[in-house]
């Protein structure tokens, strides 16, 4: 059996004196969405930052297809096939939409099949193709979020990490983003979705881990999405 696309093992991450993540282990495979939900300050973003090499774990391992990426620089993790859609989108507002996409190519491993990948991204987010020549800062929040995901996808990653992609979006835009994530999973990517919208995430993801105070408390499946009592209990556990 081949190793999982991304695997976290007994991970400890500290922010100075504060233990942000403690003993977290989970894995995700190709064609899977794994949700990471929980209240603010639970350690969800710190987990993503550790994967990307922005924070160095004090203990544990992070493996990409079985190979440890701990200690690598963020750009090297990106070039190894992990793309992050950061919190707050982090779009380059002064650059055009097309230039933002071109930046996404920096993490791409191979030049071939670029046109086919671009077309798939445009199919997924037609608005990105339509507004190619506009400054990205002129786009609405929802359009910028689509651009942020498109920019991650043109790198042709194996693993896609998303940090609260629905934050501050109108309900219609949240639908677009979640539908896109479903399509991205069906394409065979491994998707790790950090979200505050617990119910929608649980319904979408193959598994959702509830995180609180730096540890994983509970794992929920899509069948639990309707069970409000379990979810509320998990949040306040």
């Amino acid at each position: 059996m081949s190793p999982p696309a991304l695997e976290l093992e007994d991970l400890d991450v500290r922010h100075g004196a504060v233990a942000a993540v403690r003993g977290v282990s989970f894995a995700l495979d190709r064609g899977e969405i794994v949700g990471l939900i929980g209240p603010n300050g639970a350690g969800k973003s710190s987990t993503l930052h550790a994967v990307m090499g922005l924070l160095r774990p004090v203990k544990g391992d992070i493996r990409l297809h079985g190979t440890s990426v701990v200690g690598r620089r963020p750009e090297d993790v990106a070039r190894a096939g992990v793309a992050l859609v950061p919190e707050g989108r982090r779009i380059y507002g002064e650059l055009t939409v097309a230039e933002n996409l071109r930046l996404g190519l920096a993490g791409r491993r191979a030049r071939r099949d670029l046109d086919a990948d671009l077309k798939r991204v445009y199919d997924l987010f037609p608005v990105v193709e339509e507004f190619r020549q506009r400054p990205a800062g002129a786009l609405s929040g929802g359009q910028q979020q689509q651009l942020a995901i498109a920019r991650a996808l043109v790198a042709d990653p194996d693993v896609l990490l998303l940090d609260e992609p629905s934050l501050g979006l109108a309900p219609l835009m949240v639908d677009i983003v979640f539908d896109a994530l479903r399509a991205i999973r069906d394409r065979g990517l491994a998707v790790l979705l950090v979200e505050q919208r617990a119910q929608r995430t649980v319904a979408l993801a193959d598994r959702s881990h509830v995180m609180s105070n730096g540890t994983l408390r509970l794992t929920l499946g899509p069948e639990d999405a309707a069970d409000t009592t379990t979810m509320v209990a998990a949040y306040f556990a």
Partner: protein
Amino acid sequence: MIAAVLGIDWRTLADAFALGSIYALMAIGIGLVFGVLRLVNFAYGQLVMAGAFALALASQWGWPVWAGILLCFAVVIVLSLLMDRIVFRPLREQSPAVMLVATFAVAFLLQSIALLWFGSLGKIATSLSFLQRPVTISGVDIRKITIVAMVVAACCLVALVLLLNKTNVGLHMRAAAMDFQTARLLGVRANRVIASAVLISGLLAAIVAVMLTVQTPLVTPDFALRDTIVVLAGVVVGGMNRLVSATLGGFAIGFASGLLGGALPTNQSQYLPSFVFAAVIVVLLIRPGGLFSRPGQAAVDRV
């Protein structure tokens, strides 16, 4: 028109334009590195000085002009890349203050080395002195170097705009200047972007060295030091956060110095820096974000 009011002749105007062009190139060299490293490289003038000594030595050894220029470029570029590798890269994660002090140290180090090797009297670079001779354009005598300086600066500007806008490395440099962390998360290699900026900045320093030695053939260890300080003031006045505004600031202060230098009586030209810096203070009081920065834009990471 302004020229007529101040009683400035065409020759002074051309000289001021040339000085502005040279200072604009220095401003770009400083601004490019500031963009990606958020660091004011105070050792920039010493790079120019090293290039100028290379030219002086080459002319002393009787080398042909092209070989001297080649040596100048080689010396400045090797020094720039060494500076990146030995100083900037290991200290990049440190606070801006640490890096700033480090560039001061490099500046003094290079100046002391020059003092040890060449003495305080300096050397004379004569191989390009033919550019001091004037050509007559519609009745006005203009030194060749003024024309060369303006043409070279214009070519450098066009090349740089093309590089920044049309190439991947240019796009990566622009993105890194706006938000370095996101650029790295997208796979942009930090070391390569910084090395590119330092390399281009070094190329510009070498070009500046060639043109300044024509203007001032006597090369001493404090060569280009005053120019660097004036350009730094210009860059701050123009607005450090954007390359365009920093460049305009460099040009403006060079142009203003040139005009004032021509307008002030010779016995008062020693007060020129006072006039220039008085103008700098006034501008910063009125527009702290920089003369050419966009209104409402926050003045961040200013040194």
